[in-house]
């Protein structure tokens, strides 16, 4: 049997999975802590991709073109987008905590529409991508883009870092406590509004990291946020709202299943993801790693 095509799909599926994880981890955290389902998450991801591109281009013009310029560009975009996330929470999102689900969804959906047009106004209709000029390497009977290993490594590193942050640091423990009981955390004298703003900033920062890392493989184009957000929802629901481990496992399931479905049913690969989502929602609505309590 020729394993070449399968190895190729496996690596592209895993790198896709890691990007989905970076994106969905923030979505899941925001939902877990604030009970807000952020429709605009993938749009912020897209916006950040354009920002990263612009910083990268600027740096390349100033200091000469080099693939390494992507690194400071990503750092800059993550910092900038975290600030944007912080501001969004302080000025808009926090007004909806006492509202019901549809209004919260509507507010973040309004952001999808507004930010989408802002991108169009600033960057125009042209797609943006970065070509790092990485040569494919030969392995397992096929040619693999080694940059995919950078993405996979980043994803695993961030997953480990998030685990450490949530379980071993004081702030992380407060965040986890807030997932279970906001009123209790607040009663212990911790300023919950600050926690909210910082969690939102962290989530948006992770989305920014995801788009920066993915930029050399995926061109940023208007409208891709609408496809990505529903896949990210699928990941969060399959894994279980608020569960990081669940989000990680579900990202791998969704990324790899998508990648292999493309071999057999190119146009319908996304239908497979929704089939899994439907099965999970019928069988375990709270997700693979979620707890029933929160439903």
């Amino acid at each position, binding site marked *: 049997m020729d394993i070449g095509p399968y190895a190729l799909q496996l690596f592209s599926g895993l790198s896709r999975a890691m990007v989905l994880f970076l994106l969905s981890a923030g979505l899941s955290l925001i939902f877990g802590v604030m009970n807000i389902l952020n429709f605009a998450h993938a749009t912020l991801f897209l916006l950040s991709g354009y920002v990263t591109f612009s910083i990268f281009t600027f740096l390349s013009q100033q200091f000469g073109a080099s693939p390494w310029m992507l690194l400071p560009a990503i750092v800059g975009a993550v910092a900038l987008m975290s600030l944007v996330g912080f501001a969004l929470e302080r000025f808009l999102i926090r007004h909806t905590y006492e509202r019901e689900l*549809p209004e919260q969804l509507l507010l973040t959906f309004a952001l999808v529409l507004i930010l989408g047009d802002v991108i169009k106004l600033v960057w125009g209709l042209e797609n943006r991508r970065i070509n790092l000029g990485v040569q494919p390497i030969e392995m397992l009977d096929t040619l693999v883009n080694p940059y995919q290993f950078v993405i996979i490594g980043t994803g695993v590193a961030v997953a480990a870092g998030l685990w450490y942050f949530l379980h071993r640091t004081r702030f992380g423990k407060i965040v986890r406590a807030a997932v279970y009981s906001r009123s209790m955390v607040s009663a212990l004298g911790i300023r919950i509004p600050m926690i909210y703003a910082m969690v939102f900033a962290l989530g948006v920062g992770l989305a920014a990291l995801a788009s920066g890392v993915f930029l050399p493989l995926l061109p940023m184009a208007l409208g891709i946020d*609408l496809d990505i957000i529903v896949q990210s929802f699928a990941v969060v629901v399959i894994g279980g709202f608020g569960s990081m481990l669940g989000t990680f496992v579900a990202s791998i399931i969704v990324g790899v299943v998508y990648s292999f479905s493309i071999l057999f049913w190119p146009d*319908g690969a996304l*239908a497979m993801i929704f089939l899994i989502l439907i099965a999970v*929602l019928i069988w375990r609505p709270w997700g693979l790693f979620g707890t029933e309590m929160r439903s």
Partner: protein
Amino acid sequence: MSAPSPHHPGWLARLRAGDGLGWPVAILMSVLFLLVPLLPGEYWTQVGTEILILGLFAMSFNLLYGYMGQISFGHAAFFGVGAYATAMLFTALKTPAGAIGVPEFLLSLLVGPPVAALAALFIGFFCVRLTGIYFAMLTLAFGEMLFYIVFSWYSFTKGDDGIQGLLPPDFFQDSANFYYFTLAIVALALFVMWRITESPFGSALRTLRDNQRRAAFLGTNVKMHMLANFVIAGAFAGLAGALWGPFSRSVNPGLLGWGESGIAVFMTLIGGAGAFIGPIVGSVIYTMLQAVVKMYTVYWPLTIGSVILLIVLFAPGGILGIIERRMRAARAGNQANGGDPAAGPSAAEAQP
């Protein structure tokens, strides 16, 4: 925003309850709708037709949201299934030259609602077991799956090309005639919908919307009621979809996507989910705004996004919600004779 309690005074409350002032408002709206084709040019007649079809779609969505308390992000699946069922039969019945007779045309329209209802029966069977965000996610998942099936099953649905050439019979090609035809169907559909929401079945739905456990204690079969309502909502969405094909002369997979579902959600929340006619009011505002804004700019999403943002922040309950709060505040002010204005709304609610 939930759909407020049914027991408070004011003409809007009575309109919700379906007595008294409901008829004058309905008649006023009907008269305004009847006059639309008198406007010069075909453009506004076509906008009017769009208002009616999408308004019916939004009304069907509000059966789930306003009356059952569940938000669906996949309601366009039934709009799209209805549209495709009609479009396929239409294509099968028309002559090779592209013409279709009036009976065949009407028959193709009739097939939309039952096929959509069938799809809703299957999908609803699973969805009514969940509530809240899980209901929203499962409807979204089914909707997106149907979207990708229609999108990729080229031999059956023509994939992303869609189905073109749905030219109705000569009589209906005239904008004004098609408009009045649509108006008649939509008016009839709204009348049936209104009867349903005011029936004991409708009351049971509102009870389980407010408290499922209490409804179950009172002997209501909660899941059965929700499923029946899901199928009814699907059938009306299918009717709207059936009208959409001959109106726009084509159908495409986008009609099933979650963007289309979003339109129903927008219209309902702009108009106000708490009032029976809220979604239609929302459709008038949304569609007219779109028709005007698109004349001047391509930045329609930015415009509607800002409008929604303002509504969520400053006008929860939609346009009808604002009017209602104003009137309630005024009444409370009169009755309390200059009492604490902050206590106004609750004071009004306390009235028998």
